[in-house]
């Protein structure tokens, strides 16, 4: 679980509040002067290139393709101009213009022109789509909808059936990109029904306590039974085989037997034709009675006795397990032996145990000779999906085991056997069959039977905890009437008031219209008349409220479309949905009601309070996921044969490192510079082991000091970031370089152009990565962007595709069928030295990182842009330049302390204006 971060509640002093007031004025006057936006303008010097290479065919005299360039304005101010310039850009990029045989522009000139045009086009598009500060009303996105139900009803439901809100390139808070459909309306209603049912059930079952302990040695019975069955099956199969051979030996069968033998590849194959042999018994007579071919089953069973198949691999693993000590008091988590042994331990939770908060306790110890990397235990629900939810480091031993406490939640939706089955297993042994194969083969090579056991379990205990006496969640408290069917009939006026109160809560303080409540009462009545009981009719009625517009939309009414300051209540909602993705809590609403929230000091103090609350995790995760493009982490499967150490637990920890590091900086109000370079990393045991850093034990992430020569620390030291900059097998310097430009340097390259001719002539050649990428320098279309991108990627080549440090790399040819040819393999020492385009040179990653860290202002700008878009729910346009500058400058005077950026944003006019 997360360690509690120490909180610096009052880092922002009154002195800095004074600064905000100045800042506030600055943005007020600046936003009035939006005409000063950056112009999308090409420099005059490029006119010459167009005149000497284009105008003769596309000018006043001739207009081939009805297109002329001589009258193209250098300033792109309209969509029409933008389209015409786009055409020029596309034609040059695809190499179609100037046509073959015509005089071609000099390479550097063309590259420079392409670079500038592509960037000016980005500027133009951004200008043309600028919302000029206007914020479109938006509905709750998927996360906010879920959290809002959680805060109202006290339950978390799975909302994955709602359509995803991302994918448009904007943050999922941008109202103009959040749509609504009829289908969705029905989903909202059904999800609300689900949440209400869950909430009602939780209240009904609040006092129920359940507990069961399972001694691990009980598995021994099943294991011995398994082994006995294998032995017994082999015996029966052997008898059947003998009987078939005996029948085959009869003289009357001689002809047919000879014929079958000729066609059979071995004795087992021969027995498959037992039916043709007179007197041969059916395998069914020997107990093989499956629905499939039982001769095959018998042949399979027999291998357990023979030195092949099961006999070769399974038997030694089972024999080894049986020879282990402590089987009478516990059980081992095994690796070899598959499902015949304990490759995972499962517990199926009684379907009669109600939804609620649960605790799994595991008493566990490691064997004395278990190496460090094998002392980790994975926990999850749904063994078939096998998704790891948490990884625990085991420090206990068999003599002195430790007791893990693993909290989890079961909901009404956890009805299937899989959904009610918790599992534990050794880390990195069952993620994927290709990985299990690697691990087991490695063990076989060492011992002959497979990996030795490492973890021993004494017992497992599952408990459902009581929540009796806990206050009702706000939504149900607001309702204020019984919702079970035993209660006496509720009088109309009372029901009416209850619906009003619930709607008021759901609508975040806006009272519902009378006519609306009348309709709700009508629905309740109709359901009762149709035969529904009270609770069912009530649920149906409340679910309508939770699918109504005033619940679903964060509305800030402005009938005349004039800009106006937001009201206190609107400000409260903006702040809480920004930092919690959830509705304002009672304190925030009370401050708003008293009219105090508009005071900068109060607003900033509330911002601090919200950030310190665990609910801010919703911000950290969703903001980073979208800002840094972490969806790429799930784009491809890591090649588990190449990177066996990068197992599911490590991937989970690597992903969490990003969130935890940012969270640490946020909660300690650290400098944004630490995300570029830092002398510490935020690690847990699994990740420290992966990075080869000693002295970190356990599942909690914590601050770990790094030696000066460590490549870790900051985003570019993180395995997950490098994983994204590759395809799970090999690195992509281009992806990495573009990511650094886009996210860290606020210098995003223009979008990759369509139809650029691919460089095909290098196929089939054995080259280093760098040699291959140098081809980009030859074509102006490529070099116009790649001269900026590629060098940064070269500087990161010491990180392999799984983020491990390396000093050499290799390449070999692969044929059409995907088979590599080792004869062609070439290995080289990585040279990470390069130079930023028109910038300083660097000899290695460390020097490059220093250059990047010196650009914290650019990084703060990139971060602030993203924060503006996320917080305000609209793209950050050029009209936001004054705000952006104010945020960066303000933070800059405070060592880029991260919360200064937040504070500058929330007190700004933009945050407080509709």
């Amino acid at each position, binding site marked *: 679980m997360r360690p509690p971060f120490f909180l610096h509640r009052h880092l922002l002093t009154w002195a800095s509040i004074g600064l905000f007031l100045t800042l506030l004025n600055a943005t007020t006057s600046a936003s009035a002067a939006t005409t000063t936006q950056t112009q999308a303008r090409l420099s005059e010097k490029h006119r010459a290139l167009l005149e000497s290479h284009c105008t003769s065919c596309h000018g006043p005299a001739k207009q081939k393709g009805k297109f002329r360039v001589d009258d193209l304005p250098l300033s792109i101010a309209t969509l029409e101009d933008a389209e015409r310039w786009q055409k020029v850009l596309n034609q040059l990029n695809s190499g179609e213009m100037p046509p073959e045989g015509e005089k071609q522009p000099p390479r550097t000139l063309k590259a420079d022109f392409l670079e500038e045009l592509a960037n000016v086009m980005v500027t133009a598009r951004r200008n043309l789509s600028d919302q000029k500060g206007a914020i479109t009303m938006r509905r709750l996105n998927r996360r906010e909808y879920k959290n809002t139900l959680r805060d109202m009803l006290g339950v978390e439901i799975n909302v994955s059936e709602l359509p995803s809100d991302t994918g448009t390139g904007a943050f999922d808070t941008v109202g103009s990109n959040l749509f609504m459909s009829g289908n969705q309306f029905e989903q909202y209603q059904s999800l609300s029904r689900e949440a209400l049912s869950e909430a009602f059930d939780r209240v009904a079952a609040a006092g129920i306590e359940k507990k069961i302990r399972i001694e691990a040695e009980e598995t021994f019975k099943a294991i011995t039974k398994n082994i006995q069955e294998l032995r017994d099956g082999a015996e029966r199969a052997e008898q059947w085989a003998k009987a078939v051979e005996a029948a085959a030996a009869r003289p009357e069968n001689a002809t047919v037997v000879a014929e079958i033998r000729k066609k059979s590849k071995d004795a087992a194959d021969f027995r498959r034709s037992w039916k043709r042999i007179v007197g041969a018994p059916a395998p069914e007579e020997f107990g093989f009675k499956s629905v499939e071919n039982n001769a095959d089953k018998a042949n399979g069973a027999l291998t357990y006795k023979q030195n092949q198949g099961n006999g070769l691999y399974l038997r030694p693993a089972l024999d080894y397990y049986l020879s282990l000590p402590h089987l009478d008091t516990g059980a081992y988590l095994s690796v070899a032996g598959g499902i015949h042994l304990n490759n995972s331990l499962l517990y199926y939770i009684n379907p009669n145990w109600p939804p609620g908060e649960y605790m799994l306790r595991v008493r566990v110890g490691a064997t004395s000779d278990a190496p460090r990397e094998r002392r980790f235990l994975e926990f999850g629900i749904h063994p078939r999906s096998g998704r790891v939810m948490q990884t625990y480091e085991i420090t206990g031993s068999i003599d002195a085991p430790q007791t893990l406490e693993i909290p989890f939640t079961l909901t009404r939706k956890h009805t299937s056997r899989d959904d009610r089955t918790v599992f534990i297993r050794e880390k990195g042994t069952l993620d994927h069959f290709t990985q299990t194969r690697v691990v087991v083969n490695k063990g076989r090579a060492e011992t002959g039977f497979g990996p030795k056991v490492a973890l021993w379990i004494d017992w497992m205990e599952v408990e459902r905890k009581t929540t009796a006496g806990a206050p009702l969640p706000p939504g149900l408290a607001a309702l204020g009437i019984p919702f079970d069917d035993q209660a006496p009939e509720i009088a109309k006026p009372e029901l009416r008031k209850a619906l009003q109160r619930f709607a008021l809560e759901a609508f975040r303080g806006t009272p519902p219209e009378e006519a609306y409540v009348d309709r709700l009462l009508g629905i309740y009545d109709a359901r009762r008349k149709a035969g529904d009981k009270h609770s069912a009719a009530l649920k149906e009625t409340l679910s309508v409220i939770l699918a109504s517009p005033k619940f679903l939309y964060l509305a800030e009414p402005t009938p005349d479309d004039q800009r106006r300051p937001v009201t206190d209540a609107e400000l409260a909602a903006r702040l809480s949905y920004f930092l919690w993705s959830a509705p304002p809590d009672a304190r925030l609403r009370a401050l708003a009601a008293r009219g105090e929230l508009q005071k900068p000091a109060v607003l900033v103090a509330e911002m601090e309070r919200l950030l310190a609350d665990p609910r801010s995790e919703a911000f950290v995760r969703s903001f980073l996921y979208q800002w840094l493009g972490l969806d790429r982490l*799930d784009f491809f499967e890591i090649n588990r044969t190449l990177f066996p150490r990068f197992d599911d637990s490590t991937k989970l920890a690597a992903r969490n490192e990003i969130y935890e590091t940012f969270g640490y900086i946020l909660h300690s109000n650290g400098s944004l510079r630490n995300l570029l370079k830092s002398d510490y990393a935020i690690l847990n045991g699994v990740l420290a082991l992966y990075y080869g850093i000693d002295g970190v034990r356990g599942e909690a992430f914590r601050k770990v000091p790094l030696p000066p020569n460590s490549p870790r620390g900051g985003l570019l030291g993180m395995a997950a970031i490098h994983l994204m900059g590759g395809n799970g097998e090999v690195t992509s310097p281009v992806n990495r370089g573009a990511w650094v430009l886009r996210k860290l340097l606020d210098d995003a390259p223009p979008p990759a152009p369509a139809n650029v001719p691919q460089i095909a002539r290098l196929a089939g050649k054995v080259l280093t990565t760098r040699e291959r990428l140098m081809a980009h320098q030859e074509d102006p279309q490529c070099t116009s962007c790649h001269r900026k991108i590629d060098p940064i990627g070269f500087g990161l080549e010491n990180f392999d595709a799984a983020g491990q440090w390396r000093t050499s790399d290799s390449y070999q040819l692969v044929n059409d069928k995907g088979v590599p040819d080792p004869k062609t393999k070439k290995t080289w020492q990585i040279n990470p030295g390069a130079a930023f385009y028109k910038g300083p040179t660097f000899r290695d990653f460390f020097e490059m990182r220093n250059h990047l860290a010196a650009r914290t202002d650019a990084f703060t700008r990139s971060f602030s842009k993203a924060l503006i878009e996320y917080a305000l729910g609209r793209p950050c346009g050029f009209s936001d330049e004054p705000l952006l500058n104010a945020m960066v400058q303000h933070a800059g005077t405070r060592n880029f302390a991260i919360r200064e950026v937040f504070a500058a944003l929330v007190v700004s006019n933009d945050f407080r204006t509709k």
Partner: protein
Amino acid sequence: MQNLPSLHRRHFLRSTTALIALPFLESLGFRRFASAAAPVAPPKRMVFLGVGWGVTEESWYPDIRTPGPNYALPAGLKPLERHRKDFSVVQGLWNKFSNEGHWGSTFWLTGANRYAQPGVSFSNSISVDQVAAEVLGKQTRFASLALNSAENGDASGHGPGLSMSWDIGGKPVAGLNGPLAAYHRLFAKDTTPIEQQKALLAQKRSVLDAVLEDARALKRGLGKRDNRKLDEYFQGIRDIETRLTKEEQWLGVLPPKAPLNEPQSVIAGYEETKLMYDIIFAAIQTDTCRVFTFRQPVSSLLTSLDIKVFPHDMSHYHTTRAEKLDASQRRDLAQSELFSRFLDKLKATREADGSRLFDHTAVAYGGNIRTGHELTNCPTILTGGGAGFKLGQNIVVPKNTPLCNAWLAMLHGVGIQAERHGDSTGPLREILA
């Protein structure tokens, strides 16, 4: 987009016995609907036929070294010989996210990644037929039909799902299990009293009325820009109303007289498949529906062919071959025969303008599994004139081309300009004439 909402929904409550447009089909001699007097182009239809546990690799696929029209028709496709010039086999397609060896249909039409959603162990996305139904389904009583055999899909290697169709949210679309259910849905009168049906619809409407009340209250406070946003909500509600209206509109309208007899309740395997094809054909013929998926039985097909091999066992014929291979090949033949017979029917029936139903129907036949657990080079046959397929060819595309590229091209072929589908990277032009 069609603008139905201009007709106030309440009108339909009074006109539940209205005549419903039926296309003129000479074979049945239907009377042309008055308002459709002007000659209209015959409508497009789409049919997706899923075969579950794959096919036999060595005898179903044409040789990839002989692409084009002059390939040797493999044994497994022999029953389709008479249609040789009218279908193409496409090779090299796959769904890159699929890694479930027993799920022949779950992702076949979606191309989804089951682990795409964090926090859940399964997710899917919209299937291509549902994308098509959005457009092609507007005019007919049923926007689309998802048909299954009566048996459980798992036994036949189809994988999870209530049918082969998945809705826009990636949720399973409930299918009609077996010919009897399909027949009743299409051709039998609703047994619920109309009054009760109306009450149910009225209840759904009262919910819409309530949220509209709230929406109107909200609307009063909003400026132009925000109102445009709220319009989406109104539109959503209108869409639901349109659907309820469709239900209402057809309420009490007798379905077309069935061009076939009511199926017996106990029928499985070969005969069942044949009947399901007949029902699809009848639905096309009467223009009751224009988009179909059919998840075919495999387990009961084997039983009806008197094959004793367990269906899953059959698909793993590689190690032992012998009777498993034989079963696999006989399965291919039976499926090809049934398919061939369906094409006969489509070709034999004429539209009003003299063209064949076949010319306006686009059919995809195949599945996500090649054989065993092999999920590359998914078996794919494309036929019909509805999407402008290149026919009569052994089309070999680069290995591991997204199957969704074919679906995208198919959508484009019937006039639906979708930008992408599933993991598509662009329409597969190689399959279009």
